[in-house]
């Protein structure tokens, strides 16, 4: 029993039963988070290091809160002002930290596959908090939890993932998870941001017309346009992107249907989402954030036990 794997490196290797176990455990933890004492003592003998080689506020805080709510001890390693700046290798850094008897590693790194590399070389349990443009499994899990909370079940749910699909680890993890759980997936965005042979490689349908994608879907998961990329020849300008692929209230009113809006954050207001939509009645973006702590608690709890 428990999870089938020792690490959470990606949704790709998870079984459907693992996903269901994580989501149902997350429910119990969400209840804990509603109480006045938001803590349980389950992981009080565990020390967890948050190894963030890429800047992140929301994911790191979410993990840190999850760890503290489980009564674990947490250690933070951020890229700036660290030994990595002095040229220490990843393996050396982690082995140094492990020598201080740390039990689990939560890692975000700009190189795809970094957590997989680590998993081969160290005995601690590893949780991938985002590796390059590969996967971001806990984001997909909290997205799934939020959709399940709203719709009851993921089976047959029509999900449109909108935006920079090419560079998105959130998109890939979501695609793996939603297909394992029986949802239908459309990816929508400009052709320059969607890999050419995507339909052949993954169980998705590609749609370059945003309005058609929204007319079909029950829920739209809107990805962030990385502002760093606006000077690359991928789209002409942020304003043009917004005209063609931004979700505005006017567009939603024209479609005349209720579409649940999701976004992994942080939102570029006025680019991929207009403020009225992000703050509107169909948005469950803040629920996603709330659910993120519960889902991460579930993952930490289920993986910690495997150490024995």
């Amino acid at each position, binding site marked *: 029993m428990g999870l089938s794997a020792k690490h959470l490196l990606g949704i790709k290797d998870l079984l459907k039963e693992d996903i269901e176990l994580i989501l*149902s455990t997350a429910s119990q933890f969400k209840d804990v988070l509603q109480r006045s004492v938001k803590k349980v003592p389950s992981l009080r003998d565990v020390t967890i290091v948050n190894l963030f080689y890429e800047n992140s506020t929301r994911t790191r805080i979410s993990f840190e809160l999850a760890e503290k709510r489980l009564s674990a001890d947490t250690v933070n390693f951020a890229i700036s002002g660290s030994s990595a700046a002095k040229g220490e290798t990843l393996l050396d850094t982690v082995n140094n930290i492990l020598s201080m008897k740390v039990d689990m590693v939560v890692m975000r790194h700009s190189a795809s596959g970094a957590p997989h590399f680590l998993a081969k070389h160290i005995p601690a349990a590893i949780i991938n908090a985002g590796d390059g443009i590969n996967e971001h499994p806990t984001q997909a899990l909290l997205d799934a939890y939020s959709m399940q909370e709203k719709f009851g079940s993921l089976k047959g749910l029509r999900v449109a993932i909108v935006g920079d699909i090419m560079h998105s680890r959130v998109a890939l993890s979501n695609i793996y998870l939603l297909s394992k759980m029986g949802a239908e997936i459309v990816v929508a965005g400009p052709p320059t941001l969607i890999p050419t042979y995507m339909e052949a490689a993954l169980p998705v349908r590609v749609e370059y017309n945003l309005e058609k994608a929204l007319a079909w879907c029950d829920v739209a998961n809107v990805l962030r346009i990385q502002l760093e990329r606006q000077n690359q020849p991928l789209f002409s300008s942020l304003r043009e992107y917004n005209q063609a692929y931004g979700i505005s209230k006017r567009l939603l009113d024209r479609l005349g249907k209720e579409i649940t809006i999701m976004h992994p954050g942080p939102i570029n207001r006025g680019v991929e989402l207009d403020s009225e939509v992000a703050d509107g009645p169909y948005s469950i973006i803040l629920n996603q954030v709330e659910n993120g702590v519960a889902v991460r608690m579930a993952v930490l709890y289920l993986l910690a036990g495997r150490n024995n």
Partner: protein
Amino acid sequence: MKTILSKQQIGLTVKRLAQQVLENHPSLEETVIIGIQPRGVYLSDQVVRELENIVSPGLIRYGKLDITFYRDDVRKEFHVANKTDIPFSIENRNVVIIDDVLYTGRTIRAALDALLDFGRPARVELCVLIDRRFSRELPIQPDYIGRAIDTIPADKVKVYWQERDGKDEVVIV
């Protein structure tokens, strides 16, 4: 396999337990009944139903507690967590914990820790269907006992409930 309590005996015992609880809590106004997940809730459902037959139903504060996250062996074995539903305050109230079998006492120790995270009760009492006496690993004793039995560690006491197993019976295997 040996039957400790038959269906009829379980029915009578539940009635008696409910009446004993009522003896000590005549008004039930400041009393809270908590059933322990996953198996104690079948017993607590029945005790509460019995109490509702005697006093008016609206009076009884009934909640369910899952102690998985408070276990002292939480990471040695894997346990599925069930729902905790305590939709009222336990602050300054008299709590009656209900579980099916009291064995080592570790579950109740965990339940006490969990309850204290909900508030500070005035008093906590324990009601069990079966007390495996002389098997305690912690200093915990029941206040209301269905049947006290003597067992060795190799024995397993199984409580079967109609809703889950299709019959009401308590056996030792």
